[in-house]
């Protein structure tokens, strides 16, 4: 963390001290130097992606074959490294790691290529595209922000003390979420409770450890997103939000609209809408999107199952929406509030029980967790 804080201070101070014409080059240069220092392979891959994306997206209009070729090449590299990880995990040799940030920047490149092909983005100078791809705040853990808003901020930016204060506040929130709420309250506090309950109430103990996993996942990931968004604000860029109180949502579709928003909206635009256009079947599109979201995290049967589980959840919710008009209308506000609360609790449990599939090393162990909770 400290080394990243050092890079953050270097980036922000250099950025605002330099003349405006040098700022973009400084930002891309520092990001490249950071990657080169911490993950040289990733720096080389991103440089290759950036060059290929720029070269292939220059013609206007851009041909479908070009778009398909560059997207296929990017996805191939992503799959290649994700497969390496899966094979290494299978052999119990866990030393190999995916090139830093590859999952995020490959999806950013695909987004840019598709939008260029669709004509919603005009061709841009190499410097603009490179500033977008080599943007340190979002390089490591997202969000998978979009080129359009980024480019608008790039053209508009200027010294703004309000954004600076907001950025520092977001970084503070991220830090407190990770260090205090996740690492201390949830990990230590709930751990003690899990251990105490283990002897007399094993089912409650396993249930609490599942809740702990879900809460930790949210606090850690949304904490990193807060830091990335805050870091972006310090540079005058408003990065898209990645979380919006996901555990307070009433159904699984709403949950996926507020959890890892940058990835779920990417899949909505480039998987869900494509499947809808081709097959006109919302259920198939929902399952396909959730499978991509699952496999984006890791190419393994655990994440495949997790994606399928969430896809089936969304399909069930879609079917329920069709039946809903046949049910009696709730008139009483008190009953509506109770139903709202019950929906939130049900969605929360559906989600955290789904996380068991990916938190446990094997399906057998995940099933053992379910058995411990429901059979005692």
């Amino acid at each position, binding site marked *: *963390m400290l080394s990243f804080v050092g890079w953050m201070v270097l980036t922000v101070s250099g950025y605002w001290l330099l003349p405006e014409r040098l700022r973009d080059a400084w930002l891309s240069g520092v990001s490249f130097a950071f990657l080169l220092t911490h993950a040289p392979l990733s720096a080389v891959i991103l440089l290759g992606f950036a060059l290929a994306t720029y070269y292939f997206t220059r013609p206007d209009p851009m041909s479908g074959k070009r778009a398909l070729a560059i997207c296929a090449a990017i996805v191939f590299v992503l799959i290649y490294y994700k497969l390496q990880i899966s094979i290494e995990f299978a052999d119990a040799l866990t030393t190999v790691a995916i090139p830093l940030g590859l999952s995020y920047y490959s999806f950013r490149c695909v987004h840019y290529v598709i939008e260029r092909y669709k004509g919603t983005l005009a061709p841009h100078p190499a410097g603009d595209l490179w500033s977008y791809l080599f943007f340190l705040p979002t390089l490591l853990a997202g969000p998978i922000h979009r080129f359009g808003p980024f480019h608008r901020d790039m053209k508009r930016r200027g010294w703004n003390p309000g954004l600076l204060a907001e950025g520092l*506040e977001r970084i*503070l*929130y991220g*830090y*407190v979420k*990770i*260090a*205090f709420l*996740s*690492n*201390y309250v949830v*990990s*230590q506090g709930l751990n003690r409770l899990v251990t105490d309950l283990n002897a007399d109430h094993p089912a409650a103990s396993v249930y609490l450890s599942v809740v702990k*996993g879900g809460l*930790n*996942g949210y606090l*850690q*990931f949304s904490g990193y997103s807060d830091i990335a968004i805050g870091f972006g604000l310090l540079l005058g860029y408003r990065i898209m939000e990645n979380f919006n109180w996901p555990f307070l949502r009433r159904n699984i579709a709403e949950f996926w609209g507020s959890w890892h928003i940058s990835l779920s909206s990417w899949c909505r635009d480039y998987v869900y809408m494509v499947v809808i256009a081709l097959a006109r079947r919302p259920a198939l599109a929902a399952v396909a999107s959730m499978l991509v979201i699952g496999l984006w995290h890791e190419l393994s049967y655990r994440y495949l199952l997790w994606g399928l589980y969430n896809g089936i959840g969304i399909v069930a919710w879609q079917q329920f929406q069709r039946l809903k008009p046949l049910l009696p209308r709730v008139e009483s506000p008190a009953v509506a509030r109770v139903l709202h609360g019950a929906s939130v609790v049900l969605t929360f449990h559906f989600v955290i029980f789904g996380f068991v599939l990916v*938190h446990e090393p094997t399906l057998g162990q995940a099933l053992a967790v379910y058995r411990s909770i429901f059979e005692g």
Partner: protein
Amino acid sequence: MYAFLRKRLPAGPATVLVGIWYALLIVLVLWSVVEPQAEFRYVKL
């Protein structure tokens, strides 16, 4: 946070509440520096 409070409260109470809020956050950050179990570290999820 101040903008959020200011929309719902008069300036005085909003300023006091935001002061308490930031003081609490700063205490938590300082405490996380001295409490090893609350340090900033990556947890493999």
